[in-house]
Structures are given as structure tokens and as C-alpha cells.
């Protein structure tokens, strides 16, 4: 296969990854890793490097819009980033010792979990009385709704912090944003309103991914020939996705994509167990 053909296919795949990723909330890395490893039989190390690049591109691309709207909770994001960046650096360190087949199996499990999370019924939190820690750390905030500014409080800071560390480890190990885990930590455990937790999670993904990307870049995992179509494609796709999102009912799309992702995940795990990586 010539480099030109390879680049064009990858560009198309990355565009698709960005498009679907921005509409369903699953990051670009989720599509990039299976495409490269299962589709092109590219070594999983290169795939992880490319997925990190895709994660940063999706996060920074869409976060810029959310941040301006003032929905993101910057203090909450920054506080939890201590956990995710520590985890990410740890995950990137573990990755050296982890056999590639084990990485593929863990990736499969995380994929199925992420797919299930996107199908979860979303209902906004009832009024929560914030914990003392949340008050001390100034994590309570407000966000704009159609009825005007709405304030909220949150709870169980330590529980959310621990789960964020795990999210960071997985993101450093696999190159994905692990947005599903981040939302779980904020939404379910800390009881942050849904809109705030998704946008804050999206905002955090870039920083978490950058913390491990600096490690992977120096280890030579990031190949410029693979990264270039991924950056351009994912950004293009995410931009289109954000536009389509306003006029589309993504419910059906979410279900189709979650099923597809689960099939890919089982495939990854099967290959992992049969030592095909």
C-alpha cells in the first residue's frame, strides 16, 4: 500500500472518529486504536500514540466552545486534574512493563464500559447539599440554563478524586481520554449536574492526555506520518459533528455506535487472549 492511499484512508477514518465522537461523547481514541490495530495491523504502541493525539484534538477543539459558554467548572476541573495527571504519568510508566496483549484486553473492557455509559439514562441531580470539603475547596458553582443561572453543590470529593486517579491511569496506559469514567466520577459520585460534568470532563481530557503525551512523544510512540492525518481528520470531524449536533437526534446514533464499539471491543479482547498483538 502506498503512503498516499494509507493517509487518505486514515484521514477518512479519523474524520469519522471525530464526527461520531463529538456527537456521542466517546472520544476519538476509541475509534482510532481499533482502526489502526485491527484494520491496518499497526503495532499497538503507535496506535496509543495516535489515540493520545486524537484525544487532545477532540478535547481542545470542543472545550473551546464550552468554556466560552461558562458551563465548565474550572476550579473543579483543576482540582481533579491533580488526580488525573498523576494517574496519567503513572499509567504511561506502567505501559512499558505491560504486555501488549494485556493492554488490548484492558482496552476492550474499558470500551464496553464506555459504550454502556453512553446509553445510560441521564437525569439531572436533585438538589444536593454540598459537603464540607466541597465548600472548603470552593467547588460549588453555577451554570447557565434557559431559566437563567442555576447554582449547584457537590459531595463526596474524596470518592470522586480516587476514581479520577483510575481514569488518569487508564488514559495514560491506553491513550484514550476515559471520558466515561470522568463523567461517572463527577456525575454519579460527586453529584455534579450532568451538563457541568460532561463539559468539565471534556475540558480535563486534554490536560490528562497531554501529561502522558509528553512521555509517549519522548519514547518515540508518536509517528508523524500517522499523527498528521489523525489531527486533521479528527478536528474536521469534530467541527462537523458539533454543527450536526444542534439539528439531530443522536439517540439512535448512540445505540448503533455503542453496539458497534462493543463488537470491536470483543474482537480486541479475543485477539488479546489469543496473543495476536
Amino acid at each position, binding site marked *: 500500500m502506498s503512503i498516499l492511499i494509507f493517509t487518505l484512508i486514515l484521514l477518512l477514518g479519523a474524520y469519522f472518529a471525530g464526527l461520531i465522537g463529538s456527537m456521542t461523547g466517546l472520544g476519538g481514541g476509541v475509534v482510532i486504536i481499533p482502526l489502526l490495530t485491527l484494520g491496518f495491523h499497526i503495532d499497538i504502541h503507535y496506535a496509543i500514540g495516535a489515540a493520545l493525539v486524537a484525544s487532545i484534538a477532540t478535547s481542545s477543539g470542543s472545550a473551546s466552545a464550552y468554556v466560552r459558554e461558562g458551563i465548565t467548572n474550572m476550579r473543579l476541573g483543576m482540582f481533579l486534574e491533580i488526580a488525573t495527571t498523576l494517574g496519567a504519568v503513572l499509567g504511561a510508566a506502567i505501559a512499558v512493563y505491560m504486555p501488549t496483549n494485556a493492554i488490548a484486553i484492558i482496552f476492550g473492557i474499558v470500551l464496553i464500559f464506555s459504550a454502556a455509559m453512553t446509553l445510560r439514562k441521564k437525569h439531572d441531580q436533585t438538589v444536593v447539599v454540598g459537603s464540607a470539603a466541597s465548600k472548603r475547596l470552593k467547588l460549588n458553582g453555577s451554570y447557565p440554563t434557559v431559566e437563567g443561572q442555576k447554582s449547584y453543590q457537590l459531595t463526596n470529593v474524596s470518592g470522586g478524586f480516587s476514581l479520577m486517579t483510575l481514569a488518569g491511569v487508564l488514559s495514560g496506559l491506553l491513550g484514550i481520554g476515559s471520558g466515561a469514567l470522568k463523567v461517572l466520577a463527577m456525575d454519579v459520585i460527586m453529584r455534579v449536574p450532568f451538563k457541568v460534568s460532561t463539559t468539565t470532563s471534556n475540558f480535563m481530557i486534554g490536560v490528562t492526555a497531554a501529561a502522558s503525551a509528553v512521555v509517549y512523544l519522548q519514547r518515540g510512540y508518536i509517528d508523524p506520518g500517522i499523527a498528521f492525518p489523525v*489531527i486533521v481528520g479528527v478536528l474536521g470531524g469534530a467541527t462537523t459533528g458539533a454543527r450536526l449536533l444542534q439539528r439531530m437526534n443522536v439517540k439512535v446514533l448512540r445505540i448503533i455506535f455503542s453496539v458497534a464499539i462493543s463488537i470491536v471491543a470483543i474482537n480486541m479482547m479475543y485477539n488479546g487472549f489469543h496473543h495476536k498483538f
Partner: protein
Amino acid sequence: MKKFSTMYFRDRDIQKIIGKLLRLGVVSASIISLIGGIIYLSVHGMDSIPDYHKFHGQPETLTQIAGIIEKTFSLNARGIMQLGVVVLIMTPILRVFCSLFSFAIEKDRMYVVITFAVLSIILFSMFTGMKI
């Protein structure tokens, strides 16, 4: 002209600046990699793809900032594309820097410390490369 004070620099204004910064970083990263990519394809487009089945890693010049910049100036296609990656990675890190300043302007000492902790973790991994 408005005074450069805590009142003026409220959260929303800072969020607007950070939003613009993220956009700028992402757009310049994609433009740089696109330029590198076009050169890469025009020179090597018809070659067959490198052996990606086995992991070889990148040559040292493409894993360090100094090497990447040097290659960019000599108009090496892979170097320019890798510079696009570096700009993309730097975007969220620069954002953390901006947050540090914004918390300092707000005189929020606790969050200056928290942001500094995040930054230190990133800088630590950047300078050690975690080559254990």
C-alpha cells in the same frame, strides 16, 4: 479604559480568553501538520508505507523539541508534522499556565497552589520523559 483589577478579570472573561487560546492552538496545530503532510505526501506519497507492524520507535531527532525544531527549519516533512503534534500537546499545557495567572489575579491562593501542582506533575513527566 477599564482597570486591570480583580473586578474586571472575572471568571467569565478569563474563560473567554482560555477558549480563544484553545481554538488558536488547535487551529495552528492542524495548519502546521497539514503543511508538513502535504510536503510529506508530495515527496513520499508513492512510496509504500513504513513497517508499522513492528514497533521501532522514532529516531531521537523526532522525540525531542530541539531536534524537531531543527528538522522543521531544514524543511523536513516529518519534522514539520511532528511540530504540529508538539503544538497540539502544548495547547492544554499552556491553558494550565493561563489558569495559574488567572487564579493569581483573583488572589485565590489555594487554587494557585492546586494549579501549580498540576503544572509540576506535567513538567516532571516532560523533563524526565519517564524513561524508567
